[in-house]
Protein backbone atom coordinates (compact mmCIF):
# COMPACT_ATOMS: atom_id res chain seq x y z
CA UNK A 1 0.00 0.00 0.00
CA UNK A 2 1.25 3.42 -0.91
CA UNK A 3 -0.62 6.44 0.35
CA UNK A 4 1.63 9.20 -1.04
CA UNK A 5 -0.47 9.77 -4.18
CA UNK A 6 -3.63 10.04 -2.07
CA UNK A 7 -2.06 12.29 0.55
CA UNK A 8 -1.16 14.72 -2.23
CA UNK A 9 -4.89 14.95 -3.03
CA UNK A 10 -6.01 15.69 0.53
CA UNK A 11 -7.15 19.26 -0.22
CA UNK A 12 -9.60 17.91 -2.81
CA UNK A 13 -10.95 15.40 -0.31
CA UNK A 14 -11.40 18.17 2.26
CA UNK A 15 -13.33 20.22 -0.32
CA UNK A 16 -15.48 17.15 -1.05
CA UNK A 17 -16.11 16.66 2.66
CA UNK A 18 -17.24 20.30 2.90
CA UNK A 19 -19.78 19.67 0.16
CA UNK A 20 -20.95 16.54 2.00
CA UNK A 21 -21.36 18.56 5.20
CA UNK A 22 -23.27 21.48 3.74
CA UNK A 23 -25.58 19.26 1.71
CA UNK A 24 -26.29 17.11 4.78
CA UNK A 25 -26.91 20.10 7.02
CA UNK A 26 -29.17 21.77 4.46
CA UNK A 27 -31.14 18.56 3.86
CA UNK A 28 -31.52 17.92 7.59
CA UNK A 29 -32.75 21.48 8.22
CA UNK A 30 -35.21 21.48 5.30
CA UNK A 31 -36.23 17.95 6.29
CA UNK A 32 -36.92 19.12 9.85
CA UNK A 33 -39.30 21.84 8.62
CA UNK A 34 -41.07 19.51 6.19
CA UNK A 35 -41.07 16.70 8.77
CA UNK A 36 -42.73 18.91 11.40
CA UNK A 37 -45.35 20.05 8.90
CA UNK A 38 -46.05 16.45 7.88
CA UNK A 39 -46.15 15.40 11.52
CA UNK A 40 -48.73 18.10 12.26
CA UNK A 41 -50.73 16.87 9.25
CA UNK A 42 -50.52 13.27 10.42
CA UNK A 43 -51.84 14.22 13.84
CA UNK A 44 -54.52 16.63 12.60
CA UNK A 45 -58.23 15.95 12.73
CA UNK A 46 -58.56 16.34 8.97
CA UNK A 47 -58.76 12.95 7.21
CA UNK A 48 -57.43 14.29 3.89
CA UNK A 49 -54.37 15.85 5.55
CA UNK A 50 -53.74 12.66 7.48
CA UNK A 51 -53.91 10.58 4.30
CA UNK A 52 -51.51 12.89 2.45
CA UNK A 53 -48.98 12.73 5.29
CA UNK A 54 -49.31 8.95 5.64
CA UNK A 55 -48.78 8.54 1.88
CA UNK A 56 -45.75 10.83 1.99
CA UNK A 57 -44.15 8.83 4.81
CA UNK A 58 -44.93 5.51 3.18
CA UNK A 59 -43.45 6.50 -0.19
CA UNK A 60 -40.26 8.16 1.02
CA UNK A 61 -39.53 5.57 3.68
CA UNK A 62 -40.41 2.77 1.26
CA UNK A 63 -38.19 3.83 -1.65
CA UNK A 64 -34.40 3.60 -1.70
CA UNK A 65 -32.82 7.06 -1.72
CA UNK A 66 -30.87 6.05 -4.84
CA UNK A 67 -34.13 5.40 -6.69
CA UNK A 68 -35.59 8.74 -5.53
CA UNK A 69 -32.44 10.50 -6.77
CA UNK A 70 -32.50 8.74 -10.14
CA UNK A 71 -36.16 9.63 -10.61
CA UNK A 72 -35.65 13.28 -9.58
CA UNK A 73 -32.62 13.62 -11.84
CA UNK A 74 -33.71 11.75 -14.98
CA UNK A 75 -37.51 12.02 -15.12
CA UNK A 76 -38.21 15.82 -15.00
CA UNK A 77 -36.16 16.62 -18.17
CA UNK A 78 -38.56 14.28 -19.96
CA UNK A 79 -41.33 16.77 -19.21
CA UNK A 80 -39.25 19.79 -20.17
CA UNK A 81 -38.13 20.62 -16.62
CA UNK A 82 -34.38 21.17 -16.34
CA UNK A 83 -32.64 19.72 -13.28
CA UNK A 84 -29.14 20.17 -11.95
CA UNK A 85 -27.40 17.51 -9.84
CA UNK A 86 -27.41 19.82 -6.81
CA UNK A 87 -31.15 20.56 -6.88
CA UNK A 88 -32.04 16.91 -7.43
CA UNK A 89 -29.62 15.99 -4.62
CA UNK A 90 -30.98 18.50 -2.13
CA UNK A 91 -34.59 17.67 -2.97
CA UNK A 92 -34.00 13.91 -2.76
CA UNK A 93 -32.08 14.00 0.51
CA UNK A 94 -34.64 16.40 2.02
CA UNK A 95 -37.67 14.29 1.04
CA UNK A 96 -35.97 11.14 2.30
CA UNK A 97 -35.03 12.52 5.70
CA UNK A 98 -38.39 14.34 6.01
CA UNK A 99 -40.14 10.96 5.74
CA UNK A 100 -38.09 9.60 8.62
CA UNK A 101 -38.23 12.80 10.68
CA UNK A 102 -42.04 12.87 10.42
CA UNK A 103 -42.20 9.53 12.18
CA UNK A 104 -39.56 10.55 14.73
CA UNK A 105 -41.51 13.69 15.69
CA UNK A 106 -44.77 11.77 15.79
CA UNK A 107 -43.27 9.19 18.16
CA UNK A 108 -41.89 12.07 20.27
CA UNK A 109 -45.26 13.81 20.36
CA UNK A 110 -47.01 10.63 21.49
CA UNK A 111 -44.79 10.45 24.58
CA UNK A 112 -46.10 13.82 25.83
CA UNK A 113 -48.71 13.67 28.58
CA UNK A 114 -52.03 15.15 27.31
CA UNK A 115 -52.28 17.16 30.54
CA UNK A 116 -49.66 19.62 29.30
CA UNK A 117 -51.74 20.83 26.37
CA UNK A 118 -54.87 20.94 28.55
CA UNK A 119 -53.09 22.97 31.22
CA UNK A 120 -51.73 25.38 28.62
CA UNK A 121 -55.19 25.79 27.10
CA UNK A 122 -56.62 26.55 30.55
CA UNK A 123 -53.93 29.21 30.97
CA UNK A 124 -55.14 30.87 27.77
CA UNK A 125 -52.37 29.75 25.39
CA UNK A 126 -53.37 29.84 21.72
CA UNK A 127 -52.89 26.68 19.65
CA UNK A 128 -49.80 28.16 18.04
CA UNK A 129 -48.36 29.10 21.42
CA UNK A 130 -48.98 25.57 22.69
CA UNK A 131 -47.15 24.14 19.70
CA UNK A 132 -44.28 26.60 20.05
CA UNK A 133 -43.80 26.63 23.83
CA UNK A 134 -45.16 23.29 25.05
CA UNK A 135 -44.82 20.74 22.26
CA UNK A 136 -41.70 21.72 20.30
CA UNK A 137 -39.18 22.00 23.16
CA UNK A 138 -40.31 18.73 24.71
CA UNK A 139 -40.47 16.86 21.40
CA UNK A 140 -36.97 18.07 20.60
CA UNK A 141 -35.62 16.79 23.91
CA UNK A 142 -37.08 13.28 23.67
CA UNK A 143 -36.18 12.88 20.00
CA UNK A 144 -32.50 13.88 20.24
CA UNK A 145 -31.22 10.25 20.15
CA UNK A 146 -33.39 9.36 17.15
CA UNK A 147 -32.48 12.62 15.38
CA UNK A 148 -28.79 11.91 15.98
CA UNK A 149 -29.13 8.51 14.26
CA UNK A 150 -31.01 10.17 11.43
CA UNK A 151 -28.26 12.78 11.01
CA UNK A 152 -25.61 10.02 10.82
CA UNK A 153 -27.77 8.26 8.23
CA UNK A 154 -28.05 11.40 6.12
CA UNK A 155 -24.27 11.96 6.16
CA UNK A 156 -23.75 8.36 5.05
CA UNK A 157 -26.54 8.42 2.45
CA UNK A 158 -25.13 11.60 0.94
CA UNK A 159 -22.48 9.31 -0.59
CA UNK A 160 -25.20 8.22 -3.02
CA UNK A 161 -25.17 11.72 -4.50
CA UNK A 162 -21.95 10.66 -6.26
CA UNK A 163 -24.14 8.60 -8.59
CA UNK A 164 -25.82 11.73 -9.97
CA UNK A 165 -22.45 13.50 -10.26
CA UNK A 166 -22.53 15.78 -7.22
CA UNK A 167 -18.87 16.35 -6.35
CA UNK A 168 -19.10 15.37 -2.70
CA UNK A 169 -16.64 13.23 -0.76
CA UNK A 170 -17.27 9.92 -2.52
CA UNK A 171 -17.37 11.46 -6.01
CA UNK A 172 -14.09 13.27 -5.37
CA UNK A 173 -12.59 9.94 -4.24
CA UNK A 174 -13.72 8.30 -7.47
CA UNK A 175 -12.10 11.10 -9.45
CA UNK A 176 -8.88 10.67 -7.50
CA UNK A 177 -8.97 6.91 -8.15
CA UNK A 178 -9.29 7.49 -11.88
CA UNK A 179 -6.17 9.67 -11.92
CA UNK A 180 -3.98 7.83 -9.36
CA UNK A 181 -5.09 4.20 -9.96
CA UNK A 182 -4.95 3.63 -6.20
CA UNK A 183 -8.51 2.50 -5.34
CA UNK A 184 -7.75 0.76 -2.05
CA UNK A 185 -5.73 3.61 -0.54
CA UNK A 186 -8.08 6.33 -1.77
CA UNK A 187 -11.25 4.65 -0.56
CA UNK A 188 -9.67 3.84 2.80
CA UNK A 189 -8.78 7.51 3.28
CA UNK A 190 -12.31 8.41 2.18
CA UNK A 191 -13.64 5.98 4.81
CA UNK A 192 -11.59 7.79 7.46
CA UNK A 193 -13.26 11.06 6.40
CA UNK A 194 -16.75 9.54 6.66
CA UNK A 195 -15.91 7.90 9.96
CA UNK A 196 -14.73 11.20 11.42
CA UNK A 197 -17.88 12.96 10.15
CA UNK A 198 -20.32 10.37 11.47
CA UNK A 199 -18.48 10.04 14.82
CA UNK A 200 -18.56 13.81 15.23
CA UNK A 201 -22.31 13.81 14.63
CA UNK A 202 -23.01 10.99 17.11
CA UNK A 203 -20.65 12.49 19.68
CA UNK A 204 -22.37 15.88 19.40
CA UNK A 205 -25.75 14.19 19.66
CA UNK A 206 -24.78 12.38 22.85
CA UNK A 207 -23.38 15.59 24.36
CA UNK A 208 -26.60 17.43 23.50
CA UNK A 209 -28.62 14.60 24.98
CA UNK A 210 -26.73 14.81 28.29
CA UNK A 211 -27.07 18.57 28.34
CA UNK A 212 -30.81 18.54 27.69
CA UNK A 213 -31.50 15.65 30.04
CA UNK A 214 -33.80 16.44 32.95
CA UNK A 215 -31.99 14.06 35.28
CA UNK A 216 -29.17 15.66 37.30
CA UNK A 217 -25.81 14.61 35.85
Amino acid at each position, binding site marked *: MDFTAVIAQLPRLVAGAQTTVWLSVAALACGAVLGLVMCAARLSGNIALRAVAAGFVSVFRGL*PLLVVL*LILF*YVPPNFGIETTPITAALLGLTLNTAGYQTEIYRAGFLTLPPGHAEAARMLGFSRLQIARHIFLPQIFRVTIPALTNEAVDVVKSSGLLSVIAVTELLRVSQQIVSSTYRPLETY*LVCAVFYFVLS*STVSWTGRALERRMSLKPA
Partner: protein
Amino acid sequence: MIDLTALAEFAPAIWRGLLVTVEICAVSLMLGLVLGLVVALLGRLPFRPLHWLIRGYVEIWRGTPLLLQLFILYYGGPSLGFTPSAYLAGVLGMSLYTGAYLSEIFRGGFDAVPPGQIEAARMLGFTRLKTVRHIEVPQMLKLVVPPTTNQMISIIKESAVLSVITVPELTLTTTRIVSETFNVVEPYLLLGLAYWSITSLVAFASRRVERRLVQA
Protein backbone atom coordinates in the same frame (compact mmCIF):
# COMPACT_ATOMS: atom_id res chain seq x y z
CA MET B 1 -48.55 10.05 -20.82
CA ILE B 2 -47.80 6.60 -19.48
CA ASP B 3 -47.45 3.99 -22.20
CA LEU B 4 -49.10 0.79 -21.08
CA THR B 5 -47.48 -1.39 -23.76
CA ALA B 6 -44.08 -0.12 -22.59
CA LEU B 7 -45.01 -1.11 -19.03
CA ALA B 8 -45.90 -4.63 -20.20
CA GLU B 9 -42.72 -4.82 -22.25
CA PHE B 10 -40.37 -3.96 -19.39
CA ALA B 11 -42.16 -5.77 -16.59
CA PRO B 12 -40.58 -9.24 -17.14
CA ALA B 13 -37.00 -7.92 -17.06
CA ILE B 14 -37.72 -5.81 -14.00
CA TRP B 15 -39.31 -8.83 -12.33
CA ARG B 16 -36.09 -10.81 -12.90
CA GLY B 17 -34.09 -7.92 -11.40
CA LEU B 18 -36.41 -7.96 -8.42
CA LEU B 19 -35.73 -11.66 -7.91
CA VAL B 20 -31.98 -11.00 -7.88
CA THR B 21 -32.50 -8.25 -5.30
CA VAL B 22 -34.61 -10.55 -3.13
CA GLU B 23 -32.05 -13.36 -3.42
CA ILE B 24 -29.07 -11.17 -2.50
CA CYS B 25 -30.94 -9.60 0.39
CA ALA B 26 -32.03 -12.99 1.73
CA VAL B 27 -28.51 -14.44 1.57
CA SER B 28 -26.92 -11.32 3.10
CA LEU B 29 -29.52 -11.22 5.85
CA MET B 30 -28.90 -14.86 6.76
CA LEU B 31 -25.14 -14.34 6.85
CA GLY B 32 -25.60 -11.04 8.68
CA LEU B 33 -27.84 -12.71 11.29
CA VAL B 34 -25.23 -15.41 11.97
CA LEU B 35 -22.40 -12.85 12.05
CA GLY B 36 -24.39 -10.51 14.29
CA LEU B 37 -25.23 -13.32 16.71
CA VAL B 38 -21.62 -14.55 16.86
CA VAL B 39 -20.32 -11.01 17.42
CA ALA B 40 -22.95 -10.31 20.10
CA LEU B 41 -22.08 -13.57 21.89
CA LEU B 42 -18.32 -12.95 21.66
CA GLY B 43 -18.96 -9.50 23.10
CA ARG B 44 -20.28 -11.16 26.26
CA LEU B 45 -17.02 -12.98 26.94
CA PRO B 46 -15.00 -11.27 29.68
CA PHE B 47 -12.01 -10.51 27.45
CA ARG B 48 -11.17 -6.83 26.97
CA PRO B 49 -9.20 -6.82 23.66
CA LEU B 50 -12.10 -8.69 22.05
CA HIS B 51 -14.47 -5.91 23.15
CA TRP B 52 -12.26 -3.27 21.52
CA LEU B 53 -12.11 -5.31 18.32
CA ILE B 54 -15.90 -5.66 18.25
CA ARG B 55 -16.46 -1.95 18.98
CA GLY B 56 -14.06 -1.09 16.15
CA TYR B 57 -15.94 -3.34 13.73
CA VAL B 58 -19.37 -2.03 14.71
CA GLU B 59 -18.40 1.66 14.73
CA ILE B 60 -16.47 1.58 11.45
CA TRP B 61 -19.03 -0.46 9.52
CA ARG B 62 -21.94 1.62 10.84
CA GLY B 63 -20.09 4.91 10.44
CA THR B 64 -19.26 4.70 6.72
CA PRO B 65 -21.56 4.44 3.66
CA LEU B 66 -22.32 0.95 2.34
CA LEU B 67 -21.47 2.17 -1.16
CA LEU B 68 -17.94 3.06 -0.02
CA GLN B 69 -17.53 -0.34 1.69
CA LEU B 70 -18.54 -1.99 -1.59
CA PHE B 71 -15.99 0.12 -3.48
CA ILE B 72 -13.25 -0.95 -1.07
CA LEU B 73 -14.12 -4.64 -1.53
CA TYR B 74 -14.70 -4.55 -5.27
CA TYR B 75 -12.13 -2.02 -6.50
CA GLY B 76 -9.68 -2.15 -3.56
CA GLY B 77 -9.69 -5.93 -3.11
CA PRO B 78 -7.53 -6.63 -6.20
CA SER B 79 -4.68 -4.57 -4.67
CA LEU B 80 -4.57 -7.20 -1.92
CA GLY B 81 -4.84 -10.14 -4.30
CA PHE B 82 -8.59 -10.57 -3.65
CA THR B 83 -10.59 -10.25 -6.87
CA PRO B 84 -14.26 -10.88 -6.12
CA SER B 85 -17.03 -10.87 -8.72
CA ALA B 86 -19.51 -8.00 -8.35
CA TYR B 87 -22.04 -10.45 -6.93
CA LEU B 88 -19.62 -11.85 -4.34
CA ALA B 89 -18.42 -8.38 -3.34
CA GLY B 90 -22.08 -7.36 -3.00
CA VAL B 91 -23.08 -10.27 -0.80
CA LEU B 92 -19.95 -9.98 1.31
CA GLY B 93 -20.28 -6.21 1.72
CA MET B 94 -23.98 -6.38 2.60
CA SER B 95 -23.43 -9.23 5.08
CA LEU B 96 -20.66 -7.41 6.95
CA TYR B 97 -22.75 -4.21 6.97
CA THR B 98 -25.90 -5.99 8.22
CA GLY B 99 -23.86 -7.98 10.75
CA ALA B 100 -22.62 -4.75 12.36
CA TYR B 101 -26.15 -3.39 12.79
CA LEU B 102 -27.63 -6.69 13.94
CA SER B 103 -24.87 -7.33 16.50
CA GLU B 104 -25.80 -4.04 18.17
CA ILE B 105 -29.48 -4.98 18.14
CA PHE B 106 -28.70 -8.40 19.63
CA ARG B 107 -26.42 -6.85 22.25
CA GLY B 108 -29.32 -4.66 23.37
CA GLY B 109 -31.57 -7.75 23.38
CA PHE B 110 -29.18 -9.73 25.59
CA ASP B 111 -28.96 -6.81 28.00
CA ALA B 112 -32.75 -6.75 28.25
CA VAL B 113 -33.10 -10.39 29.34
CA PRO B 114 -33.96 -10.16 33.06
CA PRO B 115 -30.95 -11.27 35.16
CA GLY B 116 -33.28 -13.27 37.42
CA GLN B 117 -33.84 -15.74 34.58
CA ILE B 118 -30.14 -16.41 34.23
CA GLU B 119 -29.74 -16.79 38.00
CA ALA B 120 -32.70 -19.16 38.13
CA ALA B 121 -31.24 -21.27 35.31
CA ARG B 122 -27.93 -21.50 37.12
CA MET B 123 -29.70 -22.51 40.36
CA LEU B 124 -31.39 -25.31 38.41
CA GLY B 125 -27.98 -26.64 37.45
CA PHE B 126 -27.79 -25.32 33.86
CA THR B 127 -24.23 -24.98 32.64
CA ARG B 128 -23.14 -21.58 31.27
CA LEU B 129 -23.50 -22.84 27.69
CA LYS B 130 -26.92 -24.35 28.35
CA THR B 131 -28.10 -21.09 29.92
CA VAL B 132 -27.04 -19.19 26.81
CA ARG B 133 -28.59 -21.73 24.45
CA HIS B 134 -31.90 -22.37 26.21
CA ILE B 135 -32.57 -19.18 28.19
CA GLU B 136 -30.69 -16.17 26.83
CA VAL B 137 -30.75 -16.67 23.05
CA PRO B 138 -34.47 -17.58 22.73
CA GLN B 139 -35.51 -14.66 24.98
CA MET B 140 -33.23 -12.25 23.20
CA LEU B 141 -34.51 -13.33 19.78
CA LYS B 142 -38.08 -12.62 20.81
CA LEU B 143 -37.16 -9.15 22.05
CA VAL B 144 -35.30 -8.13 18.91
CA VAL B 145 -37.99 -8.93 16.33
CA PRO B 146 -39.16 -5.32 15.74
CA PRO B 147 -35.70 -3.73 15.31
CA THR B 148 -34.54 -6.69 13.20
CA THR B 149 -37.43 -6.38 10.75
CA ASN B 150 -36.72 -2.64 10.49
CA GLN B 151 -33.17 -3.53 9.64
CA MET B 152 -34.46 -5.97 7.03
CA ILE B 153 -36.45 -3.23 5.32
CA SER B 154 -33.54 -0.84 5.34
CA ILE B 155 -31.19 -3.48 3.89
CA ILE B 156 -33.61 -4.14 1.01
CA LYS B 157 -33.54 -0.44 0.22
CA GLU B 158 -29.78 -0.13 0.67
CA SER B 159 -29.28 -3.01 -1.77
CA ALA B 160 -30.06 -0.54 -4.58
CA VAL B 161 -26.45 0.69 -4.33
CA LEU B 162 -25.28 -2.72 -5.58
CA SER B 163 -26.22 -1.37 -9.03
CA VAL B 164 -23.23 0.99 -8.82
CA ILE B 165 -20.78 -1.95 -8.65
CA THR B 166 -22.71 -3.60 -11.55
CA VAL B 167 -24.62 -6.33 -9.72
CA PRO B 168 -27.55 -7.00 -12.10
CA GLU B 169 -30.26 -6.39 -9.50
CA LEU B 170 -33.48 -4.39 -9.67
CA THR B 171 -32.02 -0.88 -9.97
CA LEU B 172 -29.31 -1.78 -12.50
CA THR B 173 -31.80 -3.72 -14.63
CA THR B 174 -34.00 -0.64 -14.74
CA THR B 175 -31.28 1.90 -15.48
CA ARG B 176 -30.10 -0.38 -18.32
CA ILE B 177 -33.60 -0.46 -19.80
CA VAL B 178 -33.67 3.35 -19.57
CA SER B 179 -30.37 3.77 -21.39
CA GLU B 180 -31.21 1.19 -24.04
CA THR B 181 -34.77 2.22 -24.87
CA PHE B 182 -34.78 5.93 -23.92
CA ASN B 183 -38.02 5.28 -22.06
CA VAL B 184 -37.64 7.07 -18.75
CA VAL B 185 -41.03 7.31 -17.10
CA GLU B 186 -42.34 3.73 -17.36
CA PRO B 187 -39.22 1.87 -16.16
CA TYR B 188 -38.73 4.21 -13.19
CA LEU B 189 -42.41 3.95 -12.33
CA LEU B 190 -42.10 0.17 -12.22
CA LEU B 191 -38.86 0.45 -10.24
CA GLY B 192 -40.47 2.64 -7.60
CA LEU B 193 -43.49 0.39 -7.44
CA ALA B 194 -41.32 -2.72 -7.05
CA TYR B 195 -39.34 -1.35 -4.10
CA TRP B 196 -42.37 0.18 -2.48
CA SER B 197 -44.22 -3.16 -2.75
CA ILE B 198 -41.49 -5.30 -1.20
CA THR B 199 -40.77 -2.88 1.62
CA SER B 200 -44.51 -2.49 2.36
CA LEU B 201 -44.95 -6.26 2.22
CA VAL B 202 -42.11 -6.87 4.68
CA ALA B 203 -43.43 -4.10 6.96
CA PHE B 204 -46.92 -5.62 6.87
CA ALA B 205 -45.64 -9.16 7.54
CA SER B 206 -43.47 -7.98 10.41
CA ARG B 207 -46.40 -6.20 12.08
CA ARG B 208 -48.35 -9.48 11.91
CA VAL B 209 -45.47 -11.44 13.44
CA GLU B 210 -44.99 -8.84 16.17
CA ARG B 211 -48.67 -8.94 17.08
CA ARG B 212 -48.56 -12.72 17.35
CA LEU B 213 -45.44 -12.58 19.54
CA VAL B 214 -47.07 -10.07 21.86
CA GLN B 215 -50.10 -12.32 22.27
CA ALA B 216 -48.01 -15.47 22.81
